[in-house]
C-alpha cells in the first residue's frame, strides 16, 4: 500500500494522536480524582475549615438590638 506523503495527512495524524493522548491523560486524571475521593478530601480538609473560619469571624448585625415594633404594620384581616 502506498504511504501518504502529503503534509496534511501527517499533520492530521499527529493532531489525532495528540488529541487521543490528551483525552486519555485527562480521563486518567479525572478517574484518579474520582476514585480516590480527592474532591471530597479537598473540600473536607481545606475548603470547609477555611470557609468556617471566615463565617465564624464575620461581622453580623445584632438583631436583638432591633425593637420589635408590633404596630408598624396593620393587622391583615379580610374576613370582616
Amino acid at each position, binding site marked *: 500500500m502506498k504511504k501518504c506523503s502529503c503534509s496534511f495527512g501527517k499533520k492530521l495524524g499527529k493532531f489525532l494522536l495528540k488529541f487521543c493522548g490528551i483525552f486519555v491523560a485527562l480521563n486518567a486524571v479525572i478517574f484518579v480524582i474520582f476514585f480516590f475521593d480527592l474532591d471530597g478530601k479537598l473540600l473536607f480538609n481545606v475548603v470547609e475549615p477555611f*470557609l468556617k473560619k471566615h463565617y465564624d469571624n464575620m461581622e453580623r448585625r445584632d438583631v436583638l438590638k432591633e425593637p420589635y415594633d408590633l404596630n408598624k404594620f396593620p393587622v391583615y384581616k379580610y*374576613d370582616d
Partner: protein
Amino acid sequence: MAKKKLTKTLKDFWNGKPHSGEEGGRRLGDLYEDKTGLLKHREWRGVKDTFYYMYNIWGYNYVHMVLDILKFSNNPIDFIKGTWRYRWMGQTYLPVIHWFERGLQGVRGEALRASAWHYRAMVSASIHQICNFFNADTRLHGGKENDAYRHTIFANETTCGTLFYPWKDAGYQYLPMEMIPYFVTCHVNSHTVLNYIDAVQSIGLPGDPCPMCQAESGLFVLDDVPDSAPIIITCNEACDASVSTHTLQDWFANKPLFALPIPMQFDDPLLKKYCMNEIEEMWKFIEEQTGVPFSWESMKKYLERQNKLQRDEWEKWEVASKTDFYPINGVAQALFRIYSTQYGIQGDFWEEASEKVKKIMYKCVEKKINPFPQTRHRVIAWSCAPLYYSNWCTWAYNCWGLNTIINMDSLMFDMEIRTDSYENMLEDMATYHMWAPMRRMAVGGMHHIFELWDYMKRFNCDMVAMYDQLQCKGMQGVHGLFEDEFRKRNINAFWIPHALPDSRTVSRAEIRRQINDYMTTVMHEEPLDPSLLDFDDSMTW
C-alpha cells in the same frame, strides 16, 4: 487453584464484587476513613457501573451544577457573593456530590441510574432556590430593591408552593425561607445547622423544643436569611414550638407578614371551612401587597402539572407495591417526594426526573430486573426521619438487606387537587395545606398516624422502621401506643431514635447499633456485609 483465583479476580473486576460476605463480599465498611466518613477510595462497582457513576453521575452533576447556576442566576457573580456571605451556602453545598455518594453507596445497575435522577432533580431545585435568593437579595446589591426582589414572596417552608401558583405566570417567585438554609443543608452537610441551633439557645431559648424550630429561628438570630422579598407568609408548621419561630421571624424580618396557620384539629368539616377562609385571606394579602390579582388560569395550569406528577408517582407506587422491580432506593424515594410536593412545580426538574425514572422502571418490569436482589425484608419507614442520616436506609440495605420500599414522607400528600371549579380547588387546597409535612401522619391525630397499617399492607411490607424524634412532644405521646399495636398485630418493628437535624443527640453509630441489635437479637439474622456493622463516622458531613 491459581486459575480459579484469576477468574474470580477478573469477574470481580468486570462485575464488581458480590454483595454478601458469603460470596467473597465487597466489604463497603473498609472503604471509610476513620471518623470523617470520607472514602479511602470509591467502591469499584464493576467496569460498567463504575464508569457510569464517574461520567453520568459524579461528572455529569458537577458540570450541571455549574450549568444550573448559569441558567437560574441573573448574574453568576451574585452566586459567588452569596457563597461568601452565607454560611448555609458555602459550608453546605460544596460537598453536594458526597451527598450522592452516601445515598447511592453499594447501589448498582438500574437502581443506581434511577435513584441518581431523583438526586439530580433535588440539586437542580436547590440551585433554583439559591439563585432566586441571590438574584433578589438586597445585601448583595448594595441595599437596592431590584425587580427580582419586588417579584419574590417569602414563605415558611411548610407553607406549600402550591398556594402561590396564581401569581406564577405574573412572574412572582415563591421562596421558602428555610428549605435551603435549613432543611436541605441537614442532608448535605449536617455540621452547618448546629450553628443555628446553638445561636437561638444562646439568646436564652430552652434547648428542649423541636430542633427544627430552633434552627429556623437561629437563622434569623445569626442574621443569615437573605433579604430577598418585601413580604412574608408564615405558618405554625402544625407545632407549638413553631409558633415561637414565627414570632421571632416577625421581629427580625420586620416586613408585612401574614400568618397562615395549619389547624391543629383538621378532620372537622367546620375547621376545613375556616382553613379555606384563611387561605383566601392570604391570597387577598398577596393581591393587596403586589397589586396583582389572583389568576385562575395560572393556578389551573400549574395544578394540572402537579396532578400529573402525582399520577406518575401512583404509577410508580403500583410497581413498588406489587413487584420487586422498583428501581428507587429508600432515601432517593423519600427526599424526592417530600421536596417535590412541598416546593411544587417551580421548574421542569421534577417532571423530567420522573419521566426518566419511569422509563428505567418499565425497563426493569419488562426485563424482570430486580434492582435490589439482596432484599430480605420490605420495610416501611414511618414518622419523621433523621435529616442528618436520611441515608440510613442505604446502609440498612447494604448491611442487612432491609429494603425501604416506602415512607411517610412520600405518602403525606397522597392526593390530586381538583381543577374543575374554584370551589373544589379551594376545598382540596385546604386539605393539601392541612396535610403539611410532619402533620398528617406525625402529630395529626390517631386516625392518620395509624394509617401505617393500611400502607404496610398496600406496599406489601413485612417490617416497620419507626422513627422516634426525641424532641417532638406530639410523637413522644404516642410511642407506647405504637409499641402496643406492634405487639398486638405481631409486626416486626425497630425504632430509630434521633433529634431531626441535630446529630449530637443520637449519633449515626447509635442508630446503626440499635438496628444491629434488633436484627441479631430479635430476628436472629446474620449481616450481609459485616464490615458495615460498626464504624466511626462521627465527624462526617
